[in-house]
C-alpha cells in the first residue's frame, strides 16, 4: 500500500516512514508542508496520505486544507490526519466535508504500531476513523438531562465505537458478538437516543458526533 507522509518535524516524519515500511507500507514520498503534500499527490497519487494537521506556514489547520484540496482532485486517496490535540469541531468538519475515507487521530496513536497500521488501512479502504479520546471526552461530557443515562453499559460501548468509525463487522469483532447482536444493539441505541442516521458509515459517525455535541 502506497503512502505519502507529511509533517514538518523531520525526526517524526522519518521515524514514521521507517516503521510504516517495517509493517509493510510503501512510503513513496515525504512532505514538509501542506502545499508540498498537495504537489506530491498531484504528481504521484498514493493510496493514503498521512499528514500532520498543524504545519507551516501558519501552523493552524494546513493539514485539513491540504486534505480538502487533495480530495477535490484525487477522491480515491484516503486521508489520515494526525495532531497533538484532537478537537471536536475539526472532527465534525471532516465528517461533514469529506465523503468517508478519512481519519483523525492523536499523534500518540502511532506508538501502538499494529493498531495504527490497521487504522490507516481502514481509511485507505474508505472507512472513517475518529480518535477514541475525542469520543470518550464527548461521551463523558456533563449534561443537564443526560440522554446517555438511558443506555446500558454495552450500548454505551457500542455508541463510542460507532463514533470512532467502526463498521458493524468491526463492532462485532471488537465486542466478540455476532453481527446480528450488534445490529440489535445499534437499533436500541438509535431508538433510545431518537437518532436517525443514513446508510453510509460516515453519516452515522457524523450523526453520533453531532448528537453528542448538542446534547
Amino acid at each position, binding site marked *: 500500500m502506497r503512502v505519502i507522509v507529511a509533517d514538518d*518535524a523531520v525526526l517524526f516524519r522519518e*521515524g514514521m516512514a521507517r*516503521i510504516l515500511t517495517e509493517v509493510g507500507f510503501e512510503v513513496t514520498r515525504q512532505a514538509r508542508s501542506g502545499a508540498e503534500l498537495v504537489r506530491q499527490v498531484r504528481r504521484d497519487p498514493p493510496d493514503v496520505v498521512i499528514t500532520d494537521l498543524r504545519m507551516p506556514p501558519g*501552523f493552524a489547520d494546513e493539514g485539513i486544507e491540504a486534505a480538502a484540496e487533495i480530495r477535490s482532485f484525487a477522491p480515491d486517496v484516503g486521508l489520515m490526519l494526525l495532531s497533538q490535540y484532537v*478537537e*471536536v469541531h475539526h472532527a465534525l468538519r471532516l465528517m461533514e466535508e469529506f465523503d468517508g475515507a478519512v481519519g483523525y487521530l492523536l499523534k500518540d496513536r502511532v506508538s501502538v504500531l499494529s493498531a495504527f497500521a490497521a487504522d490507516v488501512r481502514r481509511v485507505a479502504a474508505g472507512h472513517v476513523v475518529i480518535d477514541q479520546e475525542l469520543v470518550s471526552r464527548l461521551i463523558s461530557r456533563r449534561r443537564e438531562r443526560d440522554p446517555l443515562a438511558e443506555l446500558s453499559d454495552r450500548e454505551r460501548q457500542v455508541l463510542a465505537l460507532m463514533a470512532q468509525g467502526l463498521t458493524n463487522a468491526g463492532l462485532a469483532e471488537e465486542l466478540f458478538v455476532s453481527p446480528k447482536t450488534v445490529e440489535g444493539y445499534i437499533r436500541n441505541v438509535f431508538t433510545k437516543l431518537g437518532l436517525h442516521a443514513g446508510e453510509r458509515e460516515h453519516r452515522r459517525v457524523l450523526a453520533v458526533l453531532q448528537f453528542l455535541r448538542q446534547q
Partner: protein
Amino acid sequence: MSEAAEATEGYAEAPPIALEAGLAMVALLVAALVGYGWALGFHLDNAHNGLIAASFAAVGLYVVRMRPRHREGWLLVAVGVVSAVMFFGRQYGRVAGPLPGASWIGWIGVWPLPLAIALFGWAFMAFPHGRMLSLRWRRAGVTMVAVAALMATMSALWPVDHDRIGLVSSHPFDLPGAAVVGRLWPYLLPNYTLFQVLWTAAVVVRLRRARGDEARQMRWVVYATVMAMVVLVTGLVVFGSSVPGLLAVPLIPVAAGIAILKYRLYDIDPVINKTLVIGFLVLVVTVGYVGIVVGVGALIPVGSGWLSLLTTAVVAVAFEPLRRRAQRLADRLVYGHRATPYEALSQLSAQLDEAPEDLLDGIAATIANAIGATEVVVWVGEETHLLPQAGWPRRPDPPESSGLGELDRGPHRHVRPVVHHGTVLGAITLRKPVGEALTPGEARLLGDLLAQTGLVIAQQQQAQELQAAARRIVTAQDAARRRIERDLHDGAQQRLVTMGLELGSLEEQAKATGAPELAARVRAVRSQLLEATAELRELARGLHPMVLTQSGLEPALRMLADRSAIPSRLTVALAGRLPPEVETTAYYVVSEALTNAARHSGAGVVTVEIVKVAAGLQVQVSDDGCGGARQGVGSGLQGLQDRLAAVGATLSLDSPVGGGTRIRTVLPCV
C-alpha cells in the same frame, strides 16, 4: 395620574361626539352673545369684555378639544363664558328706549364682575396645569373667590355697581338698606387690587420655582401679559387711548394656548431676549433724542437741521455700546446669571466624581458658564501638537490638531496654555461674545480653572499610561504563553511522540525476535510515555488553547464547555473573528468563570452567552448555584478584573446569596 400625564392626555383619534357637541354648544352660545352684543352698538368701556369673551372662549375650547382633561383649558372656557354673558348683558342694557327685559339682562351684565375677576385670577394662578401651586395657594384662591362671591351677591341685590356702567334701565330690585350698602361698597373695591397682587405673587413664585417645560410655558404667558400691559400703557401715554391695549388683550389667551399645546415646539426665550434689547434701545434712543433736541436746542440757538445731525451722530456713536450693555442685561435676565467663581469651582469638583472621560467636557462647560464664553475648546497634547479633546458646545466637526502657537487667537478669542509642573499638557481656547472683553475677575477665575484642568489632564494621562502598561503586560504574558505552547508542541511533545513511535517499533521487533519479556517492558515504558504526553498536552492546552488562535472563539469555548465539570449551555452569536486580545480575554473570562462555578457554586447548570453589542463583545456567565461570590484580593475574580481593566473593560458581578452568580463584561472592540 400625574399632572404631566394628565396634561398631555388627548385622544388618539377624534374626540367623542358628546364632547364635540357640548363644546360646539358653548362655542355657539359665546358666539351668539358676543356677536349679538357687537351688533347692538359699540361702547369702548365694554369692548374689553367682548374681546376677553371671544379670545378666552376660543382658546379654551380649542385646548379642551385637544386635551379634554386639561383643567386650565376649562378655566379659560369659564372665563370666556362669564365674560360673554357680562358683555352681552351690558350691551343689551345700554340700548336706548329700553329693549324688552333690559333691566334683568343689564343686571346680568353687572353683578358677575367680581366673580369674573376672581375667575380670571384663578386661571392665572393655576397656569399652566390648572392646579394651584400648593394647598396654601389654593386656600388663598378660595378666599379670593369667597370675597368675590360676597361682592357679587351685594352687587346683585343692591345697585352698588349699577350706575357706573351706563345702563338705561334701573336695577331690578328695590331692597331696603341700599344706602348702607352703597356706603360700604367703596371699601370693598380695593379687594380687586388685592386680587391682582395675589395672582401676580402666585405667578412670580411659580416662575421662580418652575423648571424645564413648566418654566417655558410660564414665560409664554408672562411675556404676553407684559407685552399687553406695555401696549396698554404706551397707548394711554402716547395716543391717549385704551384701544391698542384693548386689542392686545387676546395675546394673553393665545400665548396660554400655545404654551399648553405647543410648548415644546416654540421657544419664547429668544423673542423675550430680543424684545428686551429692542425695547431698551428704543427707550434710550427716544429719551436721548428728545433730551438732545429739547435740552441742547434750549441752550444753544442752532438750526433744527444741525440739531438733527448732532442727535443722529450722538445716537450712532452711543448705539453699539448701549446695545451691548442691553444685550448683556437681557442675556442675564433670560439665560440666568453667570456662575460665580465659587460656583464654578464647586461645579468642577462635583464633576471630578464623574466618569473620567467626560471630565474635560465638564471643564469646558464650567469655563463657558463661568466666563460667559460662547465657545470653549480643551486641547490636549504637547506644545507643538495639540488635539481638541473636549468642548462646549460639543461640535460635530472638531477643529484640526494644532501647535500652541498656531491656535486661533482672533479678535474675541483667548488662548491659555494648560501647564502642570512646568510642562505644557494642553490649552484652552475660548471665544467671548462680540464686544466683551475678559474682565480681570474672569481672567483670575480662568487661571484657577486652568490649574484644575492641568491636574485633570495629568491624572488622565497617568490613568491612560497605567492602562497601557497593564495592556502591555497582559499582551506580553499572552505572547509568552503562546510561545511556550508552540515550543512545547514543536519540541518536547514532538520528541515524545517520536520516542513513542520508536518504542512501538522496538516492541514489534522484540515480539518478532521472540523476546516477549522485552516486548512487555517496552510496552510498559511506552504506556508511561503516553501518560506523560497526555499530561504535557493538557499543560500546553492550559497555557494557551491552540484552537483559539487556530479556529477562533466559538470552537475554543465549545472545548471549554466540553470539559466543564458542570453541565453548560453555550450561546455564541458571532460572525467572523475578533481582535486576538478580545478573543483571548473572552476565553479567559469564560474559563475562569466555569472553574469558579465548578469549585464554589454547586450549580446544576451554567449558561455562557457571548454576543456582539454596540459597545463591543458582551460576555456573560451565569449559574444557578448558591451565589454569594465576592470580588476581592485573592479571589479568582480579582485576576479577571485586572485582565479586563487592561483592555478597558469592567467586570460586573451579581451574586446574591442563594440566587446564583452572574458575571458580565463588555469587551470594547471595533
